[in-house]
Each structure stands twice: as structure tokens, then as C-alpha cells.
């Protein structure tokens, strides 16, 4: 039997392939299969481990942000006059709106947490060493991009805390010598915060930074696959090789379990403690005490210690120094040693920075609780947020209806004039709201163009141009004409 089967196999191999068999679809399927295989068959020295779930967890969280973000844009409008209304609409009225917005908002915090875990694990396991230097650099870029995402996303709801936190955040740029002010104006789209700031932050948050993140995630994953999984921090290379496992199935399972835990956590939080929205940003509010999102609180506290003269050192030089140290880590620490207990200096500095940041956050929190001027104001702000959340959604009065509505309410003479306007059928061509229709131009601002005498003459005897457009002479009692003219005069 055996020789026969071998012969058959040989025949099958040597037989010319029928043309139809190698169709494009089959080819593509094989390619997809091999791609999947290449993705799943990554060997992990020392075997799968729960310690390796953070990277894929970040990718998963990022995708969740992309999806929820795309859905939020269905209702969101990035202008200063509509942003807050549309977020309130999403939060209070749209089905599942509060849930999806909460997943997105909590997701940003989750990314920061998992990012810190990922970085700490990479650091403690010494996984940035050797052939993985570029991998670390790409990761540093991603870290910065993620912080940029959270900073730009924070402004978008345009509520009090968003507005004031971003005002402070962008003001920090002015500490940069020479170009600081220009940078701030560039980011804000002017010297002050306004609708242009919102547009810029929206573009950064939704187009520019995500494009860079996609690129650098691709680079990061490519470099990771090129360098291979780092594996455990100790053990004989040969033993590790022996105990190595492929990425699929065990590590995939671990990664999926972690992703499920994360999404379940986010889902429960979003359902039981949805993210709130404060009252609309009021730039005239001088009492408001801004506080950044929790992950920026340590930096916020740090900035408080630096008075004007030394501010450049505290706000610029020291953080830049730490950032450079962080980025250049694999170039400074070149020993192949990966065990953290054999790298006391590096680990001590890292721990010191982390504990320092934690301590700064704790001090800030304690100060806010104890400060007799700050604490009541913060309580007031929380109460304002709660009160706003309790109110039902207030739709925004659409632009064109404003003119007529406000006029009729405020000025009795104008209201009378409006009545004449309605009675004479002017609205049919010039619009209910005087904003004009396809038949006739808008009358808003007509009071600026013509004085009452001129208005009276063109109303009684329209110009040739007006008659050609279909305007008829207004034939009413003198007193009606008078109030009509007064009404039109108000429309400046």
C-alpha cells in the first residue's frame, strides 16, 4: 500500500495543474490563510504569559475608541455654539448615547492605565534592550500621541471643566521661551480660547493624531514581530527555546480574556456610573476653579511649586530632561542585564518618578479637600454639574427663528410692526423670520441700509428692480406703515 500512495502523491505533484484550479479567489484565500498563520504562529520564548497582555489590550482599547468615536461624531458638532448642546443631546436624549459616550470617556482613562502598565512591564522586564531599541522609540511616540489624544478630546464637550482645564493647559505653552506665545496662539487659533480652538482640537483629535497613531501602531507591531517576543527575564536560552509556545492558542486566549475583562469593566462603569456633563462653558465665569483629568493632576500639582523666575526650570527643563531620559533609555542603559534587581539605579529612578507622581497627585487631592477657599468652590461646581444633569435636554433655538421670536417679545412697537408684516403677507416672500426666501431677499439689516424716509418711499413705490422681483406696493393705513417701518428699522 505504501509505495502506491507515494507514487500517487508524486503523480499529483507532477501533474500539470488545471488552469481553473488556481483561480484568484483560491490564491487570495491561501494568502489570507498564510497571513493569519504568520500572525498567529509567532513563537514566544518561555511560553505564553498573563504578563504579556497589555500591548494587545492597548490595541483593543484603541480600536474601541476609534469605533465609539466614529459613532459619537454622528451627533457631535465641533463649534463653540453647538458642541455643548450636541453632547447634552447625546448624553440625555439619544438612545444608548450616554453609554457610548461613557465607554469613550472611560476608555481614554483605561488607555492611560494600561499604557502605564505596559510601559512599566517593558521597563521592569528590560524588554527595551538590545534589538528592541527602535521598538521602544516607536512606543514613546505612541505614548506622546495618546497623551495628545486625551488632551485634545477633553475640550470637545465644551463644558466648564473642559473649557477652563484647556485654558490652563494651553497657557502652559507660554513658558516656552521665544516661541511660547506664538505656539499658544497657533494651537488656540487666536490669542483667546474660542470656536477656532474647538475646531483645531477636533481636527487634531479626530484626524491628525489618529493618523499618526495608526502609522506608529503599525511600526510598533512590525518592529515587535521583527525583534520577536522578549520572553521571561531569566532562564537559559535553550530551556526557554524548548518551553516556547506559539502565540496561538494560549497567548491569544490570554489576550482575549484580558480584552473581555477590560470591556466588561468599561461596560459596567458606563452603565452604572455614566460620565456626566457640566453646564456650558462660560468664559465670563471668574470663580471657576479648573482641575485637570486625574492623570494630569500630578503635573498640575508640580507646576504650582514653581514661581515666575524659576518656572522655566520647573515647567520646561526638568520635565524635558525626564522625557529625554525616558526616550533615550535603551541607549543609556546598554547592558544586556534584564533582571530588575540587578539594575538598581534604573529601577530606583523609575520608581522614584512614579512614586513622586503619585505623591503629587495625593497632595493635590488633599489640598483641594482642605483649602477653605477651594473646597467650597469645588463642591459648588460639582453641585452645578449634578443640577445640569438633572435638567431635561433643552434643544437649541435654531438661528432663523431667533430674530422673530426675540423681537416680538422685547419691543412692543416692533411687535405691532411684525403684525402688519404678517397681515400684509410680506412673510410669504421675505420669510417668516425675515431671513428671505428664494422669492425675495432677507430684510435683516435693512434698517442699516435705508433710513425711515427711504423705507417709506420704497414701500409705497418700489424701485423698478424690486417690482421686477415681484414686490408690490404696500397699501396700508399710515399708522400701520409707520410701525412697519419702525419694525424694519429695528432689524439692524
Amino acid at each position, binding site marked *: 500500500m505504501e509505495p502506491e500512495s507515494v507514487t500517487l502523491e508524486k503523480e499529483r*505533484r507532477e501533474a500539470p495543474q488545471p488552469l481553473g484550479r488556481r483561480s484568484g479567489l483560491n490564491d487570495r484565500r491561501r494568502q489570507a490563510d498564510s497571513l493569519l*498563520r504568520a500572525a498567529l504562529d509567532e*513563537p514566544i520564548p518561555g511560553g505564553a504569559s498573563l504578563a504579556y497582555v497589555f500591548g494587545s489590550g492597548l490595541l483593543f482599547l484603541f480600536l474601541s475608541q476609534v469605533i465609539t468615536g466614529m459613532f459619537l461624531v454622528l451627533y457631535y458638532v465641533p463649534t463653540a455654539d453647538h458642541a455643548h448642546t450636541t453632547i447634552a443631546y447625546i448624553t440625555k436624549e439619544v438612545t444608548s448615547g450616554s453609554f457610548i459616550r461613557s465607554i469613550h470617556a472611560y476608555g481614554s482613562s483605561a488607555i492611560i492605565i494600561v499604557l502605564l502598565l505596559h510601559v512599566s512591564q517593558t521597563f521592569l522586564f528590560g524588554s527595551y534592550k538590545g534589538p528592541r531599541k527602535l521598538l521602544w522609540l516607536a512606543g514613546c511616540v505612541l505614548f506622546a500621541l495618546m497623551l495628545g489624544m486625551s488632551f485634545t478630546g477633553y475640550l470637545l464637550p465644551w463644558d466648564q471643566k473642559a473649557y477652563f482645564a484647556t485654558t490652563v493647559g494651553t497657557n502652559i505653552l507660554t513658558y516656552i521661551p521665544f516661541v511660547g506665545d506664538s505656539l499658544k496662539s497657533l494651537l488656540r487659533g487666536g490669542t483667546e480660547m474660542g470656536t477656532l480652538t474647538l475646531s483645531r482640537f477636533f481636527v487634531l483629535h479626530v484626524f491628525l493624531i489618529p493618523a499618526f497613531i495608526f502609522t506608529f501602531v503599525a511600526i510598533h507591531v512590525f518592529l515587535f514581530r521583527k525583534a520577536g517576543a522578549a520572553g521571561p527575564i531569566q532562564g537559559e536560552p535553550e530551556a526557554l*527555546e524548548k518551553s516556547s509556545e506559539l502565540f496561538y492558542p494560549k497567548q491569544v486566549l490570554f489576550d482575549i480574556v484580558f480584552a473581555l475583562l477590560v470591556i466588561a469593566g468599561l461596560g459596567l462603569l458606563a452603565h452604572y456610573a455614566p460620565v456626566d456633563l457640566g453646564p456650558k462653558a462660560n468664559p465670563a465665569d471668574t470663580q471657576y476653579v479648573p482641575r485637570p483629568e486625574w492623570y494630569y493632576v500630578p503635573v498640575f500639582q508640580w507646576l504650582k511649586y514653581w514661581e515666575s523666575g524659576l518656572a522655566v526650570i520647573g515647567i520646561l527643563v526638568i520635565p524635558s530632561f525626564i522625557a529625554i531620559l525616558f526616550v533615550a533609555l535603551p541607549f543609556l542603559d546598554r547592558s544586556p542585564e534584564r533582571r530588575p534587581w540587578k539594575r538598581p539605579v534604573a529601577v530606583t529612578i523609575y520608581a522614584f518618578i512614579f512614586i513622586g507622581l503619585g505623591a503629587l497627585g495625593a497632595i493635590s487631592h488633599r489640598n483641594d479637600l482642605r483649602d477653605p477657599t477651594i473646597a467650597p468652590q469645588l463642591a459648588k461646581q460639582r453641585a452645578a454639574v449634578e443640577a445640569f444633569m438633572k435638567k431635561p435636554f433643552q434643544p437649541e433655538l435654531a438661528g432663523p427663528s431667533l430674530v422673530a421670536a426675540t423681537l416680538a417679545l422685547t419691543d412692543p412697537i416692533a411687535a405691532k410692526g411684525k403684525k402688519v408684516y404678517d397681515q400684509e403677507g410680506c412673510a410669504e416672500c421675505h420669510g*417668516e423670520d425675515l431671513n428671505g426666501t428664494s422669492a425675495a431677499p432677507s430684510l435683516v439689516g435693512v434698517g442699516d441700509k435705508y433710513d425711515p424716509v427711504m423705507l417709506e418711499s420704497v414701500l409705497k413705490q418700489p424701485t423698478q428692480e424690486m417690482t421686477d422681483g415681484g414686490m408690490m406696493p404696500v397699501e396700508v393705513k399710515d399708522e400701520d406703515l409707520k410701525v412697519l417701518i419702525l419694525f424694519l428699522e429695528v432689524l439692524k
Partner: protein
Amino acid sequence: MKLLPEEMLTRKAADFPPGYDRRQDPSSGRRSFLGFLLAAGGASVGALLSVPLLRFVIHPLIRGTIPSRWTEIGSVEDFASVTSPVQKVVKIEQRDGWRKLVTEKALYVCKDADGKLSAFSSICPHLGCSVAWHDEKNNFVCPCHNGQFSAEGKLLAGPPPRGMDLLESKIEDGKLMVHYQYFRQLLPNKEVIA
């Protein structure tokens, strides 16, 4: 030895860790069953997660239409001394997503011989101009094409295809309430525009 395309596409043996026996762990049997489980599990979790997303997207469709609004025109006593049709302006609120459009619409409140109040839309059923009441003529005249209607809204003369459109009205707690609607022009019978 020539390799089949399938073999060329599969990973090289050197890619696998030493000691790793492919026959023990082929892409069949337990491994592919787990793959199936993962795919099925992933698909069901994905489906579960897409429920809020779907509800979010179709919100404008599932949100019930705003019930037709009765607008208060004034108390019945205000119209007690009325002899000829009176023009009243109603505020119509329309929701457009997160926006609210407020438009003002004119209507006429009339009283028939029995003293029953009724309301007519001031929009001419001809081409939609605003019909005006003329006390001296004791009828309605459309300024655009001279359509004329009686004090009860009946067509007297001119191009309009029907009389003025009667609006639904009721009296509640001594207040005249009107349900303002738009009607299609140029039809012999009135037909509501949604």
C-alpha cells in the same frame, strides 16, 4: 524537490521552536476547534457590543414622532365680542435633532351664527400666500391672485380650488386650542402635509 504552492506558503520549519512537533499540534483537531470557539465567542461578543451602537445610530428613527401639539389661542371669553374673523399668531415648535425651530403661523378665529368658534389657516389653498381679512368688504382676500372667501371660509371667487382650510380646534378649560397643520395646495379637497 519542487514544493506545492501550499507548502511554499506555509511557514518554514526553522520558524518553529526546536522540539516543536507539528504532527502533535496540526491545524486540525483540537486547535481548529478552539479556533472555532474563539471565532464564535468573538462574533457573539461583537454582536452584543454592537447592540448599543445600532440603537445609537437608529435613534432618530425609533424615537416616537412628537404627538401633534394643541396650541392655546386664547380664552373663549376673549372671543365673546368677536363679530368678524380675528387674526391670531400661533408659535409652532418643530424639533430638528438637537435644534428647535420656532415659527409663527397666522390663523383666523371665526364665529358662526350659533356662536361656535372655529379656526382657519391663513394660507391660501391656491398658491400659499397669506390671506387677509378685509372688514370693509366683509370677506377674505388673497393679495396674490385675488382669491376671495366668505367669513366662514367658503370660496367666493378667484382661482383657489377650495375654501379656506379649517383647522382642528377644541375648547379645553375655557381655552380655545388649535391643532395647526399644513395642507397641500391646488387640490379640490384638503389634504394634510405630514
